[in-house]
C-alpha cells in the first residue's frame, strides 16, 4: 500500500512538473516548405519569422518557443506537419504556409483540432473559406488578379492578353481565372489560355502557339523558377509582348536566375519591397535589421510576411490575455490596423488580410517597386 502511494505521489509530481513546464512557455508551431519545389519561398518566410522571434521572444511574461516542421512542398506532408505540431508539440497556434495547396491541406487539420492557423503567403480564396480557425496575413487572389488586370488594361493600355497556367497548382489556376475575369470585365480580350504542369521545363509548344496569337501581354501566375524559364523561352522564340505575374514571382533571386530575359517583367505583390521609396517605420526597421543579419541577401515580401505572421500572432495572444487556442482565434479575428512590414493589416470577416496591391518591375536588372494600385473589381 505504501509503495502504491509513493508511486502515485511520484506520478502526480511528474505530471504536475510536465504541466508546469508546458505552462511556462507559449508554444507556437511553424510549417513551411523547406525542401522541395517551394523551398526558396519557405526558407525566406522562415528567416523573416525567426527575425521576428528574436526581436520578440516573450509574450504575457512567458517565453515563446517555436517548433518548425518542413512540409516538403507536399500536400500530405503539410497535413501531417500540422497534425504533428498540434498532437505532439501541443502548440497553441500554427503559422504557415507558403503555397495555397499546402495551406488548404494543413488548414483542414488545424480547423478540426480547433487550433488557429495563420497563413503567410497562401492567397487562394479557398484557404480560409468556411473555416473558423484559419486566418492569413496576405490578401487573396481575386483582389490580386483584379489588381494585375487593372494595371495591364488601364495603366499600360494593353488590350489583348494570353495566359499560361499551371493546371496542377490551385494558386495558379485561381489567380489566372480571377485575372481573366477582371480583364474581360474591364473590356480586354483574352486571346488564348494554355496550360502546363508543375515540373515542366519545356514550354516551347505553348509559347509558339501564344506568340502566333499576338497578345499585348502574357500573364503567368507561376512560381518564380518556372517563370524565369518561361521568360527565357519567350525571348528565344522571339516573343515581344509584356509579361506579368503574381506574388509568387517575388523573389530576390529572380534577376539572377532570369538574367536579361526578365527585364521589363511586372508582377503584383504585397506592399513591401526593399526598393520601396517611402517605407513605413516598421518596414524600414525590418529592412535595416535584415541587412545586418544577412548582408549577402536581400529581403523580400515572403520574409516580410513571415515576420508579420509571427508579430500578428503574438499581438493576438497579448490581446487574448492567455495562450489558449480558442482565445487566440477570437483575438486574431479582431485584428485591426496592425502596423506590420507589409503595411497596415486588418483581418476581415472572411479571415483574410486587407491591404493594397503592390507592383514590382525589373528595371536595369534590379527589382524596382512601382507603387500601389487599387483594383477595379
Amino acid at each position, binding site marked *: 500500500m505504501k509503495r502504491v502511494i509513493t508511486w502515485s505521489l511520484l506520478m502526480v509530481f511528474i505530471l504536475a512538473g510536465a504541466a508546469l513546464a508546458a505552462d511556462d512557455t507559449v508554444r507556437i508551431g511553424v510549417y513551411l516548405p523547406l525542401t522541395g519545389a517551394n523551398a*526558396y519561398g519557405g526558407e525566406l518566410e522562415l528567416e523573416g519569422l525567426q527575425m521576428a522571434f528574436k526581436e520578440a521572444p516573450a509574450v504575457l511574461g512567458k517565453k515563446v518557443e517555436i517548433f518548425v516542421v518542413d512540409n516538403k512542398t507536399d500536400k500530405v506532408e503539410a497535413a501531417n506537419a500540422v497534425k504533428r505540431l498540434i498532437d505532439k508539440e501541443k502548440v497553441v497556434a500554427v503559422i504557415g504556409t507558403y503555397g495555397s495547396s499546402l495551406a488548404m491541406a494543413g488548414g483542414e487539420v488545424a480547423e478540426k483540432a480547433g487550433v488557429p492557423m495563420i497563413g503567410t503567403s497562401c492567397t487562394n480564396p479557398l484557404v480560409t473559406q468556411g473555416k473558423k480557425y484559419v486566418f492569413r496575413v496576405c490578401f487573396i487572389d481575386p483582389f490580386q488578379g483584379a489588381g494585375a488586370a487593372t494595371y495591364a488594361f488601364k495603366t499600360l493600355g494593353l488590350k489583348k492578353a494570353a495566359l499560361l497556367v499551371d493546371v496542377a497548382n490551385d494558386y495558379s489556376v485561381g489567380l489566372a481565372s480571377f485575372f481573366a475575369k477582371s480583364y474581360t470585365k474591364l473590356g480586354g480580350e483574352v486571346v488564348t489560355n494554355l496550360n*502546363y*504542369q508543375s515540373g*515542366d*521545363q*519545356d514550354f516551347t*509548344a505553348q509559347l*509558339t502557339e501564344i506568340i502566333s496569337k499576338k497578345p499585348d501581354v502574357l500573364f503567368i501566375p507561376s512560381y518564380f523558377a518556372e517563370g524565369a*524559364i518561361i521568360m527565357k523561352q519567350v525571348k528565344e*522564340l522571339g516573343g515581344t509582348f509584356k509579361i506579368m505575374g503574381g506574388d509568387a514571382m517575388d523573389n530576390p533571386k529572380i534577376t539572377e536566375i532570369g538574367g536579361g530575359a526578365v527585364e521589363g517583367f511586372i508582377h503584383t505583390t504585397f506592399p513591401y519591397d526593399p526598393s520601396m521609396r517611402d517605407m513605413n517605420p516598421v518596414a524600414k526597421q525590418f529592412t535595416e535589421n535584415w541587412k545586418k543579419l544577412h548582408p549577402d541577401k536581400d529581403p523580400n515580401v515572403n520574409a516580410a510576411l513571415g515576420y508579420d505572421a509571427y508579430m500578428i500572432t503574438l499581438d493576438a495572444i497579448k490581446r487574448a490575455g492567455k495562450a489558449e487556442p480558442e482565445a487566440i482565434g477570437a483575438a486574431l479575428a479582431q485584428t485591426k490596423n496592425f502596423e506590420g512590414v507589409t503595411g497596415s493589416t486588418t483581418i476581415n470577416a472572411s479571415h483574410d488580410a486587407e491591404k493594397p496591391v503592390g507592383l514590382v518591375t525589373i528595371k536595369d536588372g534590379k527589382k524596382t517597386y512601382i507603387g500601389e494600385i487599387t483594383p477595379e473589381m
Partner: protein
Amino acid sequence: MSWAMFVQHLLNGLTLGSLYALIAIGYTMIYGILRLINFAHSEIFMLGAYSVFWGVTLIHLPWPIAVTLGILAVAALGVLVDRVAYRPLRDAPRSSALISAIGVSFFLQNLAIVVFSAIPREVYRPTWLETVILVGDVRVLPLTLLVPVLSFLLMLGLIYIVYKTKAGLGMRAISKDIETSYTMGVPVNRIIALTFGIGSALAAASGIMWALRYPQLQPIMGIIPGFKAFIAAVVGGIGSIQGAVIGGLGLGLVEIMAVATFPELAGYRDALAFVLLIGILLIKPTGLMGVKLEDKL
C-alpha cells in the same frame, strides 16, 4: 497553322526529343546489360549538370575542362554507386537491386538538397549558345542542331563499344547469362563497373545538355526528364540503343505536336506520353525495337 509555325514546332520537338534520347541511351544501356532499371539515372543526370556548372561558375574552369572533369567525376560516382548499392545484391533477386536503385535515387536527391540547397541556380551559358539563328520566321537555337548530332554520335560510339570491343563482348555475355560468364573467365565485376561508368558518363552528358537548353539547376531537376526518358526507352524497346534514340525522338515530337494541334489540352501532355506508352506496349509488348526476352521485370 502557318508553315513557319509548323517548322518551329517541329524543331522544338526535335530538340526536346533528342534530349530525351540522350538520357534514354544511358538508361537502356544499363538495362540491356544488367536487366536493372537504374532509377538513380535521374540523379546522376542532375549531378552531371551541377558538377559542370560548379566547375565553370565557382572554380572558373574553362568550359571544355569543366565538362571533361564533370563527366569523369560523375562516371566515377556511377561506379561507386554500383560498388556500394548494386554489387552486394548481384546474387539477390532482381527486385532487390531495383529497390536499392530507388533508395540510391532518393539518397542522392536529398543529399543534393542538403549540399546545394533547394534554391534553383542559374546556368551561365556561353553566349554563342544563346544566339538565335533566324531562318525566315523560324528561330533556331544552336542547341537544336547540336543535341541531335551529339545523340547520334554517342549512339554510334556506344554501338561500337558494345559490338566491336572486347569489353563489349563481355557486356553482351553478361546480358545473356551472368553465371556462365563468371565461369568462362569474364571479369564480370570489372565489366559491370565499366558499364556503370559509361552509363553515368552518358547521364552526365545529357544533364549538361539539358541544363544548357533549360538553364536552371535544381536538385529535383532529374525527376521529370528521367521519367520521360524511361518511357522513351521502354517505347523504343528497353535494352535497344537504337530503340532509345527512336523512342526519345518520337516522344519529344509527339508531346510538342500534340500541344500544337490541341493547344487546349496542353496540360495533359504527360498523360499523353503515358497513353502512347500503353498503346505501343499493347500492340508490341517489347517496344518498337525490342527483342523478345524470356525474363523481364
